[in-house]
């Protein structure tokens, strides 16, 4: 009797098992193996976008979508960080550097059909900057301070718009090329109000089609694009927050383009089926040294630390070649402002020991703030540990304290005084001015609202940075930045470590893809077979 039941059970299990397998295989048959169709590019993003309103977002992840929907008045020339005309065909700058007059491109229309003109430009900047603007409540606009020097935007005629600045501000054009300066359709903002971020309309090569939360954002080609219609029909942005899963999707053919490949996964893509693209960008990874107190108050000790760390080993072993050794505070991606003659601090432990002896310190104790991860921080824990080992090899005594990114910023940004001797940090910027101006000037100490958390102060550097900021001549600016880099490298307020090379992987079906030094993702000319 018992036998009978078990027979039934076994048979039953077998039958249901077979049925299940068949059902699954059928399901798999019509969906999983399907490769993505030609003309449709599927991009694996690192997160769900917050909004598709360029004035309201701050994340590179969101910028990757926005740069394909919108244009700014100006943009970066392909492959460089120099501005060229976009929605503005040309511009004049007044002698004193405070008035910028833009001559706008004629006949450009937003995706919603409304016309792009001087009124639209004024609307965009007033919305961000004027608290009394009827649509200022569609914010908040966290990066509006990029344009805090703008006093007034005036419509001269439908195709001419004038910006009046409170003081000369050289990075102004470059800030206009940044996503915060992208131009949105006033008609769409008026229609959707606070929901504009989910119903975007710009002038760019792709128009917004659909946003399904946590699944995808779909853009379609804008055949009327003023700079020529894009090659692709459709772009799908998929948020895949887990880096391992993103890698698996790329390997399985679920996505055609993957950004921010983890260094350890790069070897997966060595075959002919994939193309790995790399591009150095305006990124610096460094350690802020507390120049106010403790061992690093002495320049010799700071230089000793710079000599003690094996940067080459860091970028080659820890980062698997996804970065290059940094020489100073300005990344080489800003070619016009970068001082080519600057040599990185060599890896020279003996020299480090000599400098420590010369400074008369023995086994200086250091507290080292390390973060677990964060925007542009690469592999901060592994890097922190390697740096600790190098410093200890020459006689430093380093205690690491690790914090989660938000907590870390909350500790570091208000200044290191009384807490730590050094902290990891990384910046990605759009102008050589930004980082040194916000993080190296005497007037940028944390109590004055800046990011100079290590309290570096050198009047010469302050003056050079002011000069570079107000000058409208690129040559003059470049000269000032180059001099500044020499001084800062010598003073060593930071331990200069690495400049990140952004990477991406494309499948064999994708052609004509390149990364930009701006870290933007531009898909207009990409072909998908």
């Amino acid at each position, binding site marked *: 009797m018992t036998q009978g039941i078990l027979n039934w059970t076994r048979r039953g299990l077998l039958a249901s098992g077979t049925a299940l397998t068949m059902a699954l295989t059928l399901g798999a048959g019509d969906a999983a193996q399907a490769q993505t169709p030609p003309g449709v590019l599927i991009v694996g993003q690192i*997160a769900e976008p917050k909004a598709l309103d360029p004035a309201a977002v701050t994340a590179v992840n969101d910028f990757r979508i926005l740069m394909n929907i919108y244009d700014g008045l100006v943009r970066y020339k392909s492959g460089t960080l120099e501005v060229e005309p976009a929605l503005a065909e040309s511009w004049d700058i007044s002698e004193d550097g405070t008035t910028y007059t833009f001559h706008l491109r004629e006949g450009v229309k937003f995706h919603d059909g409304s016309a792009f003109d001087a009124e639209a430009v004024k609307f965009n900047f007033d919305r961000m900057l004027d608290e009394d603007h009827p649509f200022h409540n569609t914010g908040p606009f966290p990066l509006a301070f990029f344009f805090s020097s703008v006093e007034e935007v005036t419509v001269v005629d439908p195709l001419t718009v004038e910006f009046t600045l409170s003081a000369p501000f050289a990075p102004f054009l470059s800030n206009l090329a940044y996503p915060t300066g992208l131009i949105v359709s006033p008609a769409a903002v008026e229609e959707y109000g606070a929901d504009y971020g989910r119903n975007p309309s710009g002038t760019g090569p792709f128009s917004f089609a659909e946003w399904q939360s*946590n699944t995808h954002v779909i853009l379609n080609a804008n055949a009327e694009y003023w700079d020529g219609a894009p090659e692709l029909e*459709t772009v799908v942005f998929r948020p*895949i927050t887990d880096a391992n899963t993103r890698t698996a999707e790329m390997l399985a053919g679920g996505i055609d383009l993957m950004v921010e490949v983890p260094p350890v996964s790069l070897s997966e893509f060595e075959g002919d089926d994939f193309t790995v693209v790399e591009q150095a960008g305006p990124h610096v990874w460094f350690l802020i040294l507390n120049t106010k107190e403790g061992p690093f108050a002495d320049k010799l000790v700071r230089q000793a630390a710079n000599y003690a760390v094996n940067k080459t080993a860091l970028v080659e072993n820890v980062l698997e070649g996804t970065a290059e050794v940094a020489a100073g505070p300005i990344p080489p991606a800003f070619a016009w402002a970068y001082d080519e003659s600057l040599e990185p601090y060599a890896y020279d432990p003996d020299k480090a020991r000599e400098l420590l002896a010369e400074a008369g310190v023995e086994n200086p104790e250091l507290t080292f703030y390390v973060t677990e991860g964060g925007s542009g921080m690469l592999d901060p824990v592994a890097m922190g540990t390697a740096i600790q080992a190098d410093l200890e090899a020459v006689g430093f005594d380093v205690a690491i304290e690790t914090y989660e990114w938000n907590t870390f910023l909350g500790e570091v940004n208000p200044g290191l005084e009384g807490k730590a001797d050094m902290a990891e940090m990384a910046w990605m910027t759009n102008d050589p001015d930004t980082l040194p101006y916000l993080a190296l000037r005497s007037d940028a100490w944390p109590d004055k609202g800046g990011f100079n958390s290590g309290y570096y102060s050198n009047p010469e550097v302050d003056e050079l940075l002011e000069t570079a900021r107000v000058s409208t001549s690129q040559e003059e600016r470049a000269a000032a930045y180059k001099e500044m880099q020499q001084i800062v490298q010598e003073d060593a307020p930071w331990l200069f470590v690495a400049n990140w090379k952004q990477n991406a992987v494309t499948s064999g079906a994708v052609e004509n893809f390149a990364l930009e030094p701006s870290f933007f993702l531009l898909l207009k000319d990409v072909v998908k077979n």
Partner: protein
Amino acid sequence: MTGYILKRLLSAIPVLFGITVIVFLIMAMIPGDPALAILGAYATPENVEKINRDLGLDAPLVARYFIWLGNMLTGDFGTSFSLNRPVIDEVLDRFGATLLLAGTSFILCAILGIAAGVVSAARQYGWADKGITFAVLLGISIPSFFLGMMMILIFAVELRWFPVSGMRMAYGGGGFADVANHLVMPAIALAVVATGVVARLSRSAMLEVLRQDFIRTARAKGVGEGRVIWGHALRAAMVSIIPVLGIQAGFVLSGAVYIEMVFQWPGVGRMLVDAILKRDILLVQGGVVFVAACYVLFNIAVDVAQSLLDPRIKT
């Protein structure tokens, strides 16, 4: 029975109230604030203050709690700042996905777990019992996120039977077959541990029951072995199996967090992880309260079901 249900529902109110206090305090106490998450390296004290003002985070703690609670009682869970969208819309969207995943896993674990337990008990120390016991031990011992990653590597990357991640195809998907196809791997990965636990406990519950007098009586009266096991014994054993199922439902729901991360399932677990990292206070609070409320309600339903099955439990 109505009185019992009502009593249980009333007793859930202080529990939920306690949950609101706890989740609110946790979010208030964890270091780092939303302004830092928004501004990143650009977080100057001035900018941080402005954003906090825009988000209404400059009010005193107690006031913020009561404003939040009051709004929630009127059905307003606030707006998520990281997604720019009403919290309740997001939570409902995501909860549907979690329910589909956890529900499928739960059904899998209940059916397979009980079946395995019953077969195991009916053939105690036989080959089926040994095989099942071994499989159960293996299933319980493998961490589900690891199993998930291995399944992706084998069945999605190598064999390409199933898609790697997500709930539907990024382009042109969304039908029943498409979603079912995406559901297979995460549902199985999530169900494995729970199935093992259910199988183990079903086995011991069945063995307990099979030793009792009424089973011997039934057999003596000539009731077929099939009816004895699947009818008499299982029904009696269900009284001890159902509470286990209740606990496993909670386990599957919380286990969904890892599985949703690995398979990028757009559920509420992944939403909470992202929201915590971004310090999206209202989204975390609203999500936790909603999930907790569902869990409490589910537990009440389990208790009610149990009292229906077993008249000895006082209602």
